[in-house]
C-alpha cells in the first residue's frame, strides 16, 4: 500500500526548562491536504513547527517523510526535504525586489554571474499557475503586507517545496487579503502541495482546512475532519471545557467614571498606519473592562498611549476628572494609575537590581524610602519588600536581596503584580497579569482583582486567552473586534454584557 502521509510527526516531546512545550504530540499530514493546527497562545503550536523546521530538536519522537524516518537538524535539512515555512514575521530584505528575495540563497549563476532571466521566467510562471499576481520587479518596501506574504509563498514554490507551513498567516492581513490567501491555499493543495496551517481562528480553519489537529497546553487533544465538526466543538477542544458562548447579561453597578478616553489615536511603530484609531470608552468604579483581541491588533499601542509610554496622535484621556492627556508618566502614576506591563523584562523590572529595589521602582522617592537628604532608606525598602514577598508568596533564592534576573519568570511576575496592586491604584491596567503563573498564584491574583473591584477600583484587563474572561463573573467586557489587521474598533453596544465574539466572529452574530 502506498504511504498516504507526506509528513508524520510521531510522539514528539520537547521540553524547555520548567515547561513541557510539546508532550507526546502526533500529527500526520496527508498528501495534498490542508491540515490545520489549532490551539491557544502558548499551546505549543509554534514549538512543534519549529521542531519540524529544524529550529529545535525534540527530546523524543520521530519525524517521517513519505514513511521514511528522517533527521532534521537545521532549516537546511528541512529545505532539502522540501519543507518550507512562511513565518509570522516575514524574512524579507526590504530594499530588494521581489525577484531578488525569491532567489536569495539559491541564485542561479554561471561562473558566479547571476542569471536572473531564467529565474524571472520561473517566478512569473509559478505566479500565474497559482494565481499570485505578483510583480517580480517591485521593491518589498513598496508592496502591501499581503504581497509580501505571497513573495514568501513564491519563495517556497521556487525552491520546489512540497510541504508548506503557514504560521498564523492571516494575523497581518485584511479581510480581503485573507479571502485571497484562502483561495491560494486551495489552489496549492489542488496542485498536490501539502499544507500545514497554524491558526487559532476557527472560522478560517472551518473555511479552508480538510482536517484539524488540536493542541492544548502542549498536549495533543485530537484530530477531526473539519467538515464534521462545529465551531463550538472545536473551541471546546481548544479551551478544554465546554465553552458557553452565549453568557447571560449580568447586572453590574458601575459607579462614577474613573477613566474617560475620547477618540484616542496612537501611531504604530511597526508600520505607517495608526495602530489605534479613534477609540472612545469609559471605565467606571467597580468595573473590570476586558479588551480582547488577537496579538497585533493594537492592544499594545492602546496601553502605551494610555500609560504615556507613547504620545497620542490625537484624543483626550481623563483620569478621575483630571485631564492627563499630556501628563508625564510619573504624573499619571501619582494620580492613581497602575500598570502591569505586557513585557516584564522590557518594562516591568530592572533585572540587575535586587528584588527589594524592584519593589519600590515607582515609589523610591517617597519619604518612606528616601530621607530628606536624598539618601535611600534601605532598611525600609527591605522591610517593605519583605512584606510584599510574604503577602504574595514571591519565592526567590535569597529573599529580598536576590537579583531579579535570577528569579523564575513566574516569581518575577508575582513581584510585579504585588508591587502594582499594593499601590492601591484607582485604575489598574493589567496586561496578561497571570502570564507564566501556576494555578494557585493565578487564583490568588484573580481574587485580588475581584476584591479590588469590590472596593470600588476600576480595572482594565488584557487577558492572555479567552478562558480568562470566564474566570471573572460580573465584569463588563468590551470587545474589540479586529476589522482589519490594524484597527481597534470598539463596539459600545456590547458593553456590560459578557459576549465574546472572537473565535467565531461571523457565526455568532
Amino acid at each position, binding site marked *: 500500500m502506498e504511504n498516504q502521509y507526506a509528513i508524520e510527526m510521531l510522539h514528539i516531546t520537547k521540553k524547555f526548562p520548567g515547561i513541557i512545550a510539546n508532550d507526546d504530540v502526533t500529527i500526520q499530514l496527508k498528501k495534498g491536504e490542508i491540515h490545520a493546527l489549532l490551539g491557544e497562545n502558548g499551546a505549543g503550536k509554534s514549538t512543534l513547527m519549529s521542531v519540524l523546521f529544524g529550529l529545535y530538536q525534540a527530546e523524543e519522537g520521530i519525524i517521517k517523510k513519505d514513511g521514511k524516518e528522517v533527521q532534521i537538524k537545521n532549516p537546511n535539512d528541512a529545505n532539502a526535504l522540501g519543507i518550507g515555512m512562511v513565518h509570522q514575521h516575514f524574512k524579507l530584505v526590504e530594499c530588494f525586489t521581489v525577484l531578488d528575495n525569491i532567489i536569495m540563497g539559491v541564485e542561479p549563476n554561471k561562473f558566479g554571474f547571476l542569471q536572473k532571466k531564467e529565474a524571472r521566467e520561473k517566478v512569473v510562471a509559478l505566479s500565474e499557475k497559482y494565481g499570485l499576481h505578483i510583480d517580480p520587479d517591485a521593491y518589498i518596501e513598496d508592496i502591501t503586507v499581503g504581497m509580501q506574504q505571497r513573495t514568501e509563498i513564491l519563495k517556497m514554490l521556487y525552491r520546489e517545496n512540497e510541504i508548506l507551513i503557514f504560521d498564523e498567516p492571516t494575523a497581518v492581513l485584511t479581510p480581503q487579503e485573507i479571502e485571497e490567501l484562502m483561495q491560494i491555499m486551495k489552489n496549492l493543495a489542488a496542485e498536490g502541495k501539502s499544507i500545514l496551517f497554524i491558526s487559532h481562528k476557527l472560522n478560517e480553519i472551518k473555511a479552508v482546512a480538510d482536517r484539524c489537529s488540536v493542541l492544548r497546553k502542549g498536549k495533543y487533544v485530537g484530530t477531526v475532519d473539519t467538515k464534521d465538526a462545529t465551531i463550538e466543538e472545536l473551541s471546546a477542544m481548544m479551551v478544554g471545557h465546554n465553552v458557553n458562548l452565549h453568557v447571560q447579561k449580568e447586572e453590574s453597578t458601575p459607579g462614577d467614571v474613573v477613566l474617560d478616553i475620547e477618540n484616542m489615536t496612537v501611531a504604530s511603530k511597526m508600520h505607517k498606519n495608526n495602530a489605534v484609531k479613534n477609540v472612545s470608552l469609559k471605565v467606571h468604579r467597580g468595573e473590570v473592562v476586558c479588551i480582547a483581541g488577537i496579538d497585533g491588533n493594537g492592544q499594545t499601542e492602546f496601553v502605551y498611549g494610555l500609560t504615556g509610554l507613547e504620545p497620542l496622535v490625537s484624543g483626550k484621556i481623563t483620569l478621575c476628572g483630571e485631564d492627563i492627556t499630556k501628563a508625564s508618566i510619573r504624573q499619571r502614576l501619582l494620580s492613581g494609575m497602575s500598570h502591569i506591563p505586557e513585557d516584564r523584562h522590557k518594562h516591568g523590572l530592572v533585572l540587575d537590581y535586587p528584588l527589594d529595589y524592584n519593589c519600590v521602582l515607582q515609589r523610591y522617592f517617597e519619604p518612606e524610602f528616601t530621607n530628606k537628604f536624598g539618601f*535611600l532608606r534601605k532598611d525600609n525598602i527591605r522591610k517593605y519588600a519583605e512584606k510584599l514577598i510574604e503577602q504574595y508568596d514571591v519565592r526567590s533564592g535569597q529573599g529580598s536581596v536576590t537579583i531579579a534576573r535570577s528569579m523564575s519568570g513566574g516569581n518575577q511576575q508575582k513581584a510585579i503584580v504585588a508591587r502594582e496592586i499594593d499601590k492601591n491604584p484607582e485604575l489598574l491596567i493589567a496586561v496578561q497579569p497571570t502570564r507564566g503563573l501556576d494555578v494557585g498564584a493565578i487564583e490568588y491574583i484573580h481574587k485580588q482583582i475581584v476584591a479590588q473591584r469590590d472596593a470600588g477600583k476600576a480595572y482594565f484587563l488584557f487577558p492572555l486567552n479567552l478562558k480568562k474572561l470566564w474566570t471573572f463573573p460580573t465584569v463588563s467586557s468590551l470587545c474589540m473586534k479586529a476589522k482589519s489587521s490594524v484597527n481597534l474598533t470598539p463596539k459600545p453596544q456590547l458593553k456590560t454584557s459578557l459576549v465574546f465574539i472572537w473565535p467565531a466572529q461571523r457565526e455568532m452574530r
Partner: protein
Amino acid sequence: MMKKILKNEAFQSLFASLLCIILGVAVGYVVLLFINPTGAGEAIMEVLKNFMHYSKTNLQLKNLGGTLVKTAPLIMCSLSILFAYKVGLFNIGAAGQYCVGICASLYCALSLGMGWVPCMIIATVCGALYGAIVGLLKSYCNVNEVISGIMLNWIALYSTNMILTPVKEITSPYTFHLASDAPKAILPTMGLDKLFAGNEKVTIALPLSILIAVLVLIVLEKTKFGYELKATGFNKNAAKYCGMAEKRNIIVTLMISGGIAALGASFLYLTDFEQWSCTSSAVPAMGFNGIAAAFLGGLNPIGTIFSSYFIQHITNGGAFVDKTMYCSQISDLISAIIIYLCGFVFFIKYAMNYLIDKNEEKQALKAKALAEANTQEGGDK
C-alpha cells in the same frame, strides 16, 4: 566553600584584574624578546620597578611622588568613564572633556590671573557643559554618545590649541610656567611635599581625587539619585515605565562625567607638572587610559584608585628602560600593551563563570548517574 569564594563577585573582579596584569606583563615581555632578547628580562623588571630603580630612599620617594601627581588626573578620568558606564553610557568623550578642563584652567590661571579655587571650579563647569552637548545630542537627537564624543574630542583639542596660543612662550609651543607667571593658581601642597622628599608637585590633588572616588561610590550606591541613574542604565525602558526622566538622567550623567574629567585636568595642569603644547595634534591619552583604569578597577570607584596608580606606575616605569638596547618609544609600547590587556577583565570574568558552570554541570551529571546506578543496584537486591 571553595566554590563560594570562586563565585564571589568581589573575588572574581580582583582575580580577573590581577590575571590581566600578569597577562599584560607576559605579552610585553614576549614583545621585548622579539625586539632584543638580551635585555628583555631586565627591561620588563625596570618597568615594574619604576621608582625602585633608584637605590636612595630620597630619590625613590621623589619619583614615587612624580607617579602620584599623574595618578590623580587618571583616577578622575576613570571615575568619569565609570560614572557614565554605570548609567549605560560609554563616555569616550572624557578625553575631550579633559582637554576642555586643561583649556579652562590654564586660561583662567595665565590669562585672567585667577587663583586655584576659581580655576578648578570654572574648569569643572566647562567640562560639564561640554559633556552636556553629548547628552543633549544623545537624548533628543538619538546620536550615539561614542560618535559625538569622538568628534567633540577633536573640536576640544583644536579649540584648546587656539585659545591657549596667546599665553604660550614665544620661542616654544608650550604655555607659560605657572610657577613664574601665575603662582597663586598652583594647587597648595598642604605639607604633602614633605612626605615625598620635597617634591612640590605632590599637591592636594591626590587626596581630593580619592575623596571624589568615595563620593562617587556613595552617590551611586546610597542615594536616590544613584538609584535612578543606575536603573536608567540597566534598563532604559523600565526607567521610563516607572516615570523616571530618563532623558534628563542621561544629560545629567554626562554633565557629571564631563565635570569629573575636566576637574581631573585641573588637578594635573594646576600643579605646573606639565605645560600644554599648542601644537598638539591629539587629545591627551589620559582620557582613554581612564577607560582601561575603570575596567581594570572592576568598575568600582575604590578599585579605580589602585588601578589608576598601577597604570601610571607602568607608564612612568617605561622611562627607565635601557635606551641603548631599545628605542625610546619602547616604554610607551610596553605600557600600551599592558593597558590594552587590562581591558580583558570582563572577558576573564566571563570565562571564569563559564568554566565554573561547566564544572558544576559535569559534577551534577556524575552525581545523577551515580544515584541512578545506586537505585538500580537497590532494585536488583
